[in-house]
């Protein structure tokens, strides 16, 4: 790694791969950083060395990543894996940690392509060992070929059936798929005008998948309005309510999912402008059509700015790169605009389809805000829904005040698993819109780094000899 770059791209998923490759191929001095050991991001994880040989298991969408990663390997850019970015300042000084050593690199332009995370799913028992996200189960499958037999998949969103089907195709036994998509969502989604046509095709594919899942002897249970994961020290089962009737399934593994939301910790901590999106029920960084944020030289692309899926992420990565290349005077405006046109066309169609998906997979309120009093909202600091409601009732006005009263959001995950829930609870109880309630005030570093790493940064000559003090630095 050098000290200065024209462009630093953070994240090697479809958005970051497209952005970095486009920049590198136009001879911008480009650095691509990703905390994973290999390129591909979430969708194309381990694409260069898939754990599973049979291509039917993960399906053709997964293998689209091969061409993207090949293009990266052929492009003259510097790619550093296992590189965790813990800071980006408004002056575009990037703090990055690689195998326990940190350094600062400077960029004329930064493209943040850090992707999405799964939406919190605060239901009773979601903290029990044996309960994990559907994405986590899929990561074990893609990267390692590891599965758990007898699992129950529960929730809503494209990843639910996709992963259940991958599991079955891989030869794992699945106990059931529990679908919490509210029935009214289907009607609403199909009335989405232009998006409904591609939406209808998607539904047909979805029905085929469900048929395949059922044909494997796996029950698909719809119309579920309440869920509880059961167990004392670990998961022993899951209970669901449908038509006022509770049913229990025995299982040691529950995989939960209700969509993905942008990974906002980095852009929030940089004080980029953000806005609440009602349709996707999440906070989003505010960008122009190219992905430019409120900070000069800082672009955001892919699911990190707006959930659009892998195809959209790739095109938006290219757009951000074209804008940067023009700013660096490596291409002129005309070249930029003609190169951008085909990408914009694809994005228009993708966006219509996304409107359909957003409506279809809007999670129901009771899965967003815990109904049960004992349910933990903040997993790190073990703060229950009841504790939060009591604190709001005595006059707490916002997420930051709630944090200082209850420690909710103060733990190592820096609010990633409670921020949205807390906002929603405040909005309901205070009868205020989410945009008004706001979000935690986040600070850097956004990833944990050892004190020794920081000390070594401050005194570079002592870096080699500094005794590492290993307590972690995390601001709250």
């Amino acid at each position, binding site marked *: 790694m050098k000290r200065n770059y024209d462009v630093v791209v953070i994240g090697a998923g479809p958005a970051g791969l497209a952005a970095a490759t486009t920049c590198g191929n136009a001879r911008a001095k480009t650095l691509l950083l990703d905390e994973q050991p290999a390129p591909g991001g979430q969708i194309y994880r381990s694409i260069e060395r898939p754990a599973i040989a049979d291509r039917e298991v993960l399906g053709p969408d997964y293998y689209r990543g091969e061409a993207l990663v090949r293009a990266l390997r052929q492009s003259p850019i510097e790619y550093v894996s296992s590189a*965790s970015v813990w800071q980006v300042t408004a002056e575009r000084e990037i703090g990055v940690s690689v195998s326990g050593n940190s350094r600062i690199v400077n960029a004329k332009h930064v493209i943040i392509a850090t992707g999405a995370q799964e939406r919190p799913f605060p239901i009773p028992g979601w903290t029990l060992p044996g*309960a994990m996200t559907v*994405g986590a189960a899929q990561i074990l499958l893609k990267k390692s070929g590891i599965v758990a*037999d007898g699992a129950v998949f529960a929730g809503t969103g494209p990843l639910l059936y996709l992963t259940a089907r991958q599991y079955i195709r891989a*030869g794992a036994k699945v106990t059931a798929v529990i679908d919490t998509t509210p029935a009214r969502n289907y009607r609403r989604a199909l009335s989405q005008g232009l998006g409904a046509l591609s939406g209808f095709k998607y539904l047909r594919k979805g029905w085929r998948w469900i048929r395949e899942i059922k044909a494997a002897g796996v029950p698909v249970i719809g119309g579920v309005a309440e869920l509880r994961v059961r167990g004392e020290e670990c998961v022993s089962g899951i209970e669901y309510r449908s038509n006022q009737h509770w049913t229990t399934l025995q299982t040691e593994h529950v995989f939960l999912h209700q969509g993905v939301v942008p990974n906002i910790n980095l852009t929030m901590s940089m004080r980029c402008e953000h806005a609440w999106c009602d349709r996707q029920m999440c906070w989003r960084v505010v960008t122009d059509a190219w992905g430019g944020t409120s900070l000069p030289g800082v672009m955001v692309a892919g699911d990190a700015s707006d959930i659009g899926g892998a195809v959209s992420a790739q095109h938006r990565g290219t757009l951000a790169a074209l804008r940067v290349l023009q700013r660096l005077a490596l291409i002129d405006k005309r070249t930029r605009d003609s190169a951008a046109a085909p990408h914009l066309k694809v994005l228009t169609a993708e966006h219509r389809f996304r409107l359909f998906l957003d409506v279809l997979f809007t999670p129901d309120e009771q899965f967003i805000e815990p109904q049960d009093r004992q349910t933990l909202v903040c997993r790190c600091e*073990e703060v229950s829904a009841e504790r939060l409601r009591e604190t709001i009732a005595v006059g707490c006005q916002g997420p930051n005040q709630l944090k200082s009263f209850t420690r909710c959001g103060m733990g190592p995950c820096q609010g990633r698993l409670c921020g949205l829930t807390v906002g929603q609870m405040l909005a309901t109880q205070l009868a205020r819109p989410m945009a008004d309630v706001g979000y935690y005030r986040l600070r850097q570093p956004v990833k944990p780094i050892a004190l020794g790493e920081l000390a070594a940064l401050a005194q570079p000559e002592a870096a080699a000899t500094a005794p*590492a003090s290993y*307590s972690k630095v995390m601001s709250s």
Partner: protein
Amino acid sequence: MFRYLQGCRGQRPSVAITIDGVATEVPADETLAAAMLQSGRLDLRITPIGGKPRSAYCMMGVCFECLVTVDDQPNQQACMTPVRPGMRVERGRP
């Protein structure tokens, strides 16, 4: 119980590590969290307040439920840490 699909474990050589002082063979080229889960160790840490066991929840570095001590460094994310021969792992305790 997590398990390898047929043909997926064989490709990976084993490395020796210790978990809570017990010598264990785990597959190389895995994250510590994946290696521990597939060897049947679901609970990776005990919470400081309620004393409850927790396991890896997201496997992608977001939730911090997988914090363990590696070679005397506390609070390492097991899902982001590759296994290395001779690694000493202690499950997270308050």
